[in-house]
């Protein structure tokens, strides 16, 4: 693979996707510490919100240590060069949250939908574009449909005004060929001035391989997470990915040595749950299940005396999508009933 001379914008997820393994308990001070260190290492874009995006604070997903607004007001003013992004999942967050984020100085809004449901994002993407934000459409669980079907959804978001479209491997299920065909299809058919991005999960340890495939297929932006702190087995570990990219001659604008220190000295010690490809994360990747379900399934398994891998496989069989965390306790109760009946 020859990527010599390519440029890519790397986007750090530790303070948003990383909120899942931290059970949304990162404090505003911790967010400021990590974000300023990432900024100093040259990371250009950093996502900050509840793990389930703006408005995610809930019984269903978990109540965070601070509100989205508190996090954003703490972090944004401390940035020298890095820009801050926020995630918004329609159905959970609303345009009111979007206006709040804009008011806090958020630069990039990423509007996320299940990969087949792009038309629920119209009002949010239209508003983001109208406020002249960097407006990104984020198609989750993209392994579930074909490249052509994804293109159709991406074109809807492009039509609403998104200037960048993401293939999001929420389950960490994809293999490099899956990424190549999906990113490639978008790159080929979307407007040339619209960027394409890839968001991976490391559940099958394919985060780096998949991200390289994405760049080769034309991705302009790639997500990763310092120390890999993200849902499931985490996101593409950013410091390792930067090392690989620099070996291959890809420009990132990031100081790899500083980034390694952020991972080792700041983020690893913060982790309350050790993010790794344990059997549950592997199950997510293997069965194609939304990565954020991980800790919820572990908790339900403990509470009802079940195996978490069994719960996750059942959630995959039921074709659950992102956001259906409420199904986990329901499925566990069903399994417990079925077990008692046997």
């Amino acid at each position, binding site marked *: 693979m020859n990527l010599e001379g390519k440029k890519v914008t790397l986007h750090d997820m530790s303070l948003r996707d990383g909120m899942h393994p931290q059970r949304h308990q990162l404090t505003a001070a911790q967010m400021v510490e990590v974000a300023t260190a990432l900024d100093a290492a040259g990371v250009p874009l950093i996502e900050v919100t509840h793990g389930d995006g703006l408005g995610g604070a*809930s*019984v*269903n997903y978990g109540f965070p240590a601070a509100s989205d607004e508190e996090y954003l007001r703490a972090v944004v003013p401390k940035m020298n060069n890095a820009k801050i992004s926020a995630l918004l999942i*329609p*159905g*959970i967050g*609303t*345009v*009111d949250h979007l206006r709040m984020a804009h008011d806090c100085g958020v630069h990039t809004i990423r509007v996320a939908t*299940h990969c*087949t*449901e792009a*038309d*629920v994002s*119209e*009002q949010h993407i239209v508003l983001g574009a109208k406020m002249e934000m960097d407006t990104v459409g984020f198609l989750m669980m993209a392994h579930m449909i074909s490249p052509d079907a994804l293109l159709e959804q991406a074109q809807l978001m492009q039509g609403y005004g998104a200037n960048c479209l993401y293939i999001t491997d929420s389950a960490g299920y994809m293999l490099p060929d899956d990424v190549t065909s999906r990113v490639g299809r978008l790159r080929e058919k979307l407007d040339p001035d619209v960027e394409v991005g890839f968001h991976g999960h490391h559940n099958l340890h394919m985060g780096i391989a998949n991200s390289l495939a994405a760049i080769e297929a034309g991705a302009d932006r790639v997500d990763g997470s310092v120390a890999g702190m993200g849902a499931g087995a985490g996101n593409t570990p950013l410091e390792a990915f930067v090392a690989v990219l620099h070996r291959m001659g890809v420009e990132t604008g990031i100081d790899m040595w500083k980034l390694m220190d952020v991972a080792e000295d700041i983020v690893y010690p913060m982790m309350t749950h050790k993010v790794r490809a344990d059997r549950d994360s592997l199950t997510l990747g293997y069965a194609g299940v939304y990565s954020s379900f991980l800790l919820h399934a572990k908790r339900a398994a403990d509470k009802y005396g079940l195996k978490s891998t069994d719960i996750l496989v059942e959630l995959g069989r*039921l*074709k*659950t*999508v992102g*956001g*259906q965390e*409420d*199904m986990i*306790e*329901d499925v566990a*109760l*069903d399994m417990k009933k079925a077990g008692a009946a046997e």
Partner: protein
Amino acid sequence: MTTKVKAAIIGSGNIGTDLLYKALRSDVIEPVWMVGIDPESEGLKRAKEFGLKTTYEGVKGLEPHIEADKVQIAWDATSAYVHQSNNDLVAKYGVRMIDLTPAAIGPFCVPPVNLREMVGRSEQNVNMVTCGGQATIPMVASVSRVQPVEYGEIIATVSSKSAGPGTRRNIDEFTRTTARGVEVVGGAKRGKAIIIINPAEPPLIMRDTIHCLTVDTPKQEEIIESARQMVEEVQKYVPGYTLKNGPVFDGNRVSFFMEVEGLGDFLPKYAGNLDIMTAAGLRTAELIAEEIQRAEAA
């Protein structure tokens, strides 16, 4: 023998048509007009086959006939954007309106919780909140009538096929209106609503999860009994309303896991989210009709 109260259905789409099927079975209401905006509308054709008068010129097309045909009740199954003007027009003739759109210009009505109160106040316009609201607010109320609820949260999951373009284009309206209904009718001090659209095939039956955080320790026995009664009340008009799991008690959290299967009149059974709206809309209209009959008899 009292005569049935005449009613008009505004909106000839899926909701309007399903409502028509249900209204044709009513003992107190007779649907006489179906109002659409598209001459090619399948819903209008079907209504005509059932013997209704139809117009494709919107409420303007209905206006000259309201008094002559004694239309006293109307349902609006169009969209939030046109509801206000639809309502203004029929209100001039004293028509009582049941609003199935999320416009919410009138007070919220969730039949097993506050229908009698609404009818008692003779409101000209009542709003049916949202499908998620109809499916979940009764359960929030089943807890709040036992003890104070600090926070109520509902998660409604519907199949892709049952989420129409109106809902999709204005999904924020759903979350906002439902959350407000959880507070105002459900009795939670603070409400939150989440909606998930799932494209699985075959389409999944509507699912709803309700979490209540009570101020004090949940009174388990009383809540279990209150919830059982509430489910029975809803089942009177939506037989497929089922408490699948729960209530789960975990500290101050009380959780219910519901499934809502529709009657399958016009809409498929999985679309319990749409069925519960049309069924609630009809139930509301029937109580209003009985009140009109009583007033006329007096």
